């Protein structure tokens, strides 16, 4: 089916960006992959309508954020049952910075976190973020105004120290994150 081929092409192109956005929202690559796939599946079901619209990226963002918020509403435990133990620490290029950023983001409520990621990473305007979140532009500004000082405080403190970063208190441990 031609439209399926088109959608596959779209999905392959869009997936990396959606996954990165989802990662900043949830802080875990595995969950991010699930969220991005969920968003694409929902888009495919409505593809006949959205394929003719200008705002396909906005639609993708909205679907992704809705999937993320729905995911957060699920009352899951903070522990992940696994039979695998890390027997040596993972090596990352700049793990401190990455962890600090993710943990600082994790201190924010889900919608505030979405505002920060969409505004300052996906580079959407206030109006576009409001459209994605289904709220007013004033609400976005308000969420942003509350989130940024908190984020700044955590990041400035953590990144100013030369040694291991001080760990901000996590609002919630994400179930997918390994120790």
């Amino acid at each position, binding site marked *: 089916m031609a439209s399926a081929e088109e959608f596959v092409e779209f999905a392959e192109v869009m997936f990396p960006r959606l996954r990165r956005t989802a*990662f900043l929202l949830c802080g875990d*690559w595995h969950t991010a992959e699930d969220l991005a796939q969920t968003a694409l599946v929902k888009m495919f*079901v409505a593809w006949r309508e959205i394929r003719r619209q200008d705002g396909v990226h906005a639609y993708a963002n909205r679907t992704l954020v809705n999937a993320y918020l729905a995911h957060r509403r699920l009352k899951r435990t903070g522990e992940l049952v696994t039979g695998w133990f890390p027997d040596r620490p993972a090596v990352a290029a700049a793990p401190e910075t990455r962890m600090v950023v993710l943990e600082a983001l994790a201190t924010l409520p889900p919608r505030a976190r979405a505002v920060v990621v969409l505004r300052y990473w996906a580079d959407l305007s206030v109006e576009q973020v409001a459209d994605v979140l289904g709220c007013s532009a004033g609400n976005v500004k308000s969420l942003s105004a509350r989130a940024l000082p908190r984020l700044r405080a955590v990041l400035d403190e953590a990144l100013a120290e030369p040694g291991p970063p001080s760990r901000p208190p996590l609002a919630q441990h994400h179930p997918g994150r390994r120790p």
Partner: protein
Amino acid sequence: MDETALRKLLDSAVADEPPIRPVGDKVLRAAVRLRRRRRAGLAAISVLAAATVTAVALATAAAPGRPAPIAPVRPAPVVPSQFSPFIAYAAFGWLPAGYRLLEGGTTRGATYQVAGRPHLVPRPWYLLAYPAGGCQLTKARGLICKAYYPFGPLALTSRAPDINGHHAYWATAYAHLPTPEPVLAWQYAPGSWAVLELGKTKPLDAHWRQVAVKAASYVRFGVHAAPPVAFPVRLTGLPASWHLISGVRAWMPYWNGVGYRPYGQVLYASEWSVSTTAASTGPRAGPRFLFTIGLAAQYSPCRGPAQGSLVHKVVNGYRVIVSRGPYGQTLCAADAGGLSVTIQEFGNHPTLDVVSLFAHHLQLLGTSPAHWATQPIR
């Protein structure tokens, strides 16, 4: 910590991204499963709705019928087997109060117009028209128009009043999906079909059927249905292989035709793509560039999603923002001589990028339609 620093930090957080596996097939399989589940849930509702529609239809047929108004027979236009993307072959001639033309577009396989209220509430109307032979009737009372209904044929449900002397049918679009839409389909010339979607997801009642028939009877067809589409910018000094992409299908991320928007009494080309190689689609296709042009006073395009770093530059005296979008590099100028210009690259061209295109090959023709061009490449 300012906003720039925050953006850099967020970028650094995704720097160690794990490798990406192909997801297309996986997503498709999951979508099919989801659709099956939804369809099963909707089956009972569909049965009830079908029974209701049948009852209403029977009641209407049994009622002492008033003869349907006899529409005047208009001469059918001569319809080509493929459209030119520079011409709007079909145009609304009547719209309800508050509705106006929002946009349109033409590919070789279809032409369309969208009309509605500026905020898209209620849902806008779509008028679609196909060239001669663009649609085929099936034995199972279906109408296949692949260029714009790739999800399956329209299911013709009953005869509608003739539109200007031509056969017309009530039909259901997207019949196998959870939200089918009632539409009016009619032959505006022998072998040439048009479809009108009124943005409804429930069966049309008598009022909306009258509205649909009225709107359809006022639709104009042919090369003079609407003003020709003019280009506020023009590309110059490019290799001969560069050409406008004008395929049969219309699809993103690049537009396979010419999209237009109204400006007073004229239509200007607002979205079109050029291919840098002879093949514009398929595996042999080379890099493509999508141009989105607007009037700076009406549209502010420089806010699309971008990731990675944004670079602010001044090119030819105009402030532009260069970013890396999901498909490649993007240049956006919010106001370049009264025009807003966005150039998106799909694929990496070996010698030209969006900045060099804007700087050396894009001729801005201003906001006066008198100076606009009929072709995008000279």
